[in-house]
């Protein structure tokens, strides 16, 4: 069992003939993901190296292949359009890997996608993986293993670091979700926590946050009020100086809301285990998931 993606996931790759798109399409196919179609306008009718059919539009791809999920690797100026095209074509899960999407574009994309009933993950995210079943995005498959832990993170490589420790310690994952660090994204911590709480295979959840915004605090309240499963958290940026951007557009400390200290306090108040170092996640999960 897993959340958002599993064996029934039938994937479109938007931008499949681009540099990143073609590389990761092959990686996903190797991992076992059912990549059923690619989209590149003007290359409709051709086939991708692996034989996957290419279409001009997402709606064509969906009609011909009954795809239900898409992953987007198109350049930033076209990403907003790609997300809206996917939602319009009726896909229920849209994963946007593209980094550098203007935030004002996202203010329009978000309500568009939502009104059409689709779930958006990202943009500027590593995607997600349900180990042993399906991988959508760029999370390296070999650092993951199937198991009972759900993981949700705003970060990319920091996620890998934590997953690497978990897997090495024998704590496999139901699903690892990278929600992305942009100020406006489609899926937040609470959406994922809620999904993990409902997923019978998930026994414990790891949440990896960052400075900036109040999503982690809101998530902590959700953990406190609603969740029965144990949750372990980590916050990156405890030593970041206030008021400076640390790469992610979202990691701005605005006013008094968003410091690492506040977030850690919220985690503690929710009775979560709080890891001081990434590696500490392992012991905390072991203690609580027994």
């Amino acid at each position, binding site marked *: 069992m897993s959340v958002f993606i599993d064996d029934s996931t039938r994937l479109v790759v938007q931008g499949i003939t681009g540099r*990143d798109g073609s590389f990761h399409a092959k990686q996903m196919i190797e991992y076992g993901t059912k990549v059923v179609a690619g989209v590149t306008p003007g290359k409709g009718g051709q086939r991708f190296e692996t034989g996957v059919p290419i279409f001009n539009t997402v709606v064509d791809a969906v009609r011909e292949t009954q795809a239900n999920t898409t992953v987007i690797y198109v350049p*930033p*100026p076209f990403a907003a359009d790609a997300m809206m095209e996917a939602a319009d074509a009726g896909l229920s899960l849209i994963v946007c890997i593209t*980094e*550098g*999407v*203007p*935030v*004002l574009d*996202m*203010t*329009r994309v*978000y*309500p*568009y996608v939502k009104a059409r009933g689709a779930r958006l993950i990202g943009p500027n995210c*590593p995607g997600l993986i349900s180990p042993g079943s399906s991988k959508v995005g*760029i*999370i*390296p498959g070999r*650092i993951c293993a199937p198991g009972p832990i759900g993981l949700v*993170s*705003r*970060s*990319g*490589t*920091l*996620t*890998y*670091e934590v997953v*690497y420790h978990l897997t090495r310690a024998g704590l496999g994952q139901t699903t690892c979700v990278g929600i992305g*660090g942009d*100020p*406006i994204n489609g899926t937040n911590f609470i959406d994922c926590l809620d999904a993990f709480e409902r997923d019978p295979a998930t026994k414990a959840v790891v949440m*990896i946050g*960052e*400075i900036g*915004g*109040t*999503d982690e605090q809101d998530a902590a309240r959700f953990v406190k009020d609603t969740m029965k499963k144990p949750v372990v958290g*980590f916050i*990156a*940026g*405890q*030593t*970041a*100086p206030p008021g*400076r*951007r*640390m*790469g*992610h*557009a*979202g*990691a701005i400390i*605005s*006013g008094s809301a968003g410091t690492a200290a506040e977030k850690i306090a919220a985690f503690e108040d929710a009775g979560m285990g709080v890891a*001081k*170092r*990434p*590696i500490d996640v392992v012991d905390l999960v072991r203690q609580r998931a027994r």
Partner: protein
Amino acid sequence: MNIHEYQAKEIFRTHGIPIPPGGVATTPAEAEALARRYASTVVVKAQVHAGGRGKAGGVKLAKTPEETRDIAAKILGMHIKGLTVHKVLVTPAADIATEAYVGIIVDRASKRAVFMVSPAGGIDIEEVAAKTPDKIMRLPVDPVYGLLPFQALQMGLFLYADIKQARAAAKIMQQLYAAFWASGASLAEINPLVTTPSGDVVALDAKMVIDDNELDRRPELALLRDETAEDPAEVRAREAGLTFIKLDGNVGCVVNGAGLAMATMDLVKYYGGEPANFLDIGGSSNPDKVVAALQIITSDPHVRAILFNIFGGITRTDDVANGIVTATKASPLRVPIVIRLTGTNEEVAVKILQEHGFSAMTEMDAAVQRAVELATAGARA
């Protein structure tokens, strides 16, 4: 991207917002000439990307052209929050009856641009928010409808009881929203928006932050970047496609990914060290980026040890290894280096490093501990 007050004012003016005239001077003589042209008392304002210019002495009244020259001479070259003043804005002083605040920011929680307006303007809006929150009106703008006329008038009426002034303010808010949207801004602010004794509503200050992600499709805005107003190392990093922020410690960090970079800094601190910087080489695995990163870090005299922490996903660790080899060949390191890499092409990377006399570690904690030890030893030496 921050832009200067005078640049933001220029943008606001093109959208019709009433703003008194003003000119930029880089020398006291230019400032004097501007004051002569306006033939009135002027305000001389330091153009730096820092708040609290007034408190820092960067904003002064001058009654005569001569006084303007003297004041400009004092402000030009001044340091405000670590930034040197290279330009001043000279603008006629306005008679002020009331001061209000008008700002737009992108709000994560509502996923919308949100107006914040307050009749208590001219001061720090965070202070107003903390002390008298009822004096602030927040209005989220539906991004697909934009700011609607009735919403603008609601805000205008929150600021002014007089319907003429309320309508004038409403118009300015429509124009500000248009400027905000057309510029791909993440913040646009007028503080203060003033009324004059004759009842006009005028913007006396202007602030705007542009979303960096917009600059590719808005080259005319990218030209507004004033690199003299930024840290030279950060400018160099940006040109190389890196994200770099200078800090006060002595452990130079090179990491792929912002989250891992922050976690690495935290771990440096955890093990008793102090990071010298935040540096994210991003997802791409171009060896040139690694070379640029090493150059930037080694140009900081405080750095006592260099720490690479690379978790290869998209990033190929062999590319990073090649970058390290190239950079250190060109200019040999004078401080110790600790390299942690794991992930994509790890075996190749380790081989390259070993062939060139470097050793590589696979565990983050061990690598950070070692780097802190070396930096501490280096600092003691």
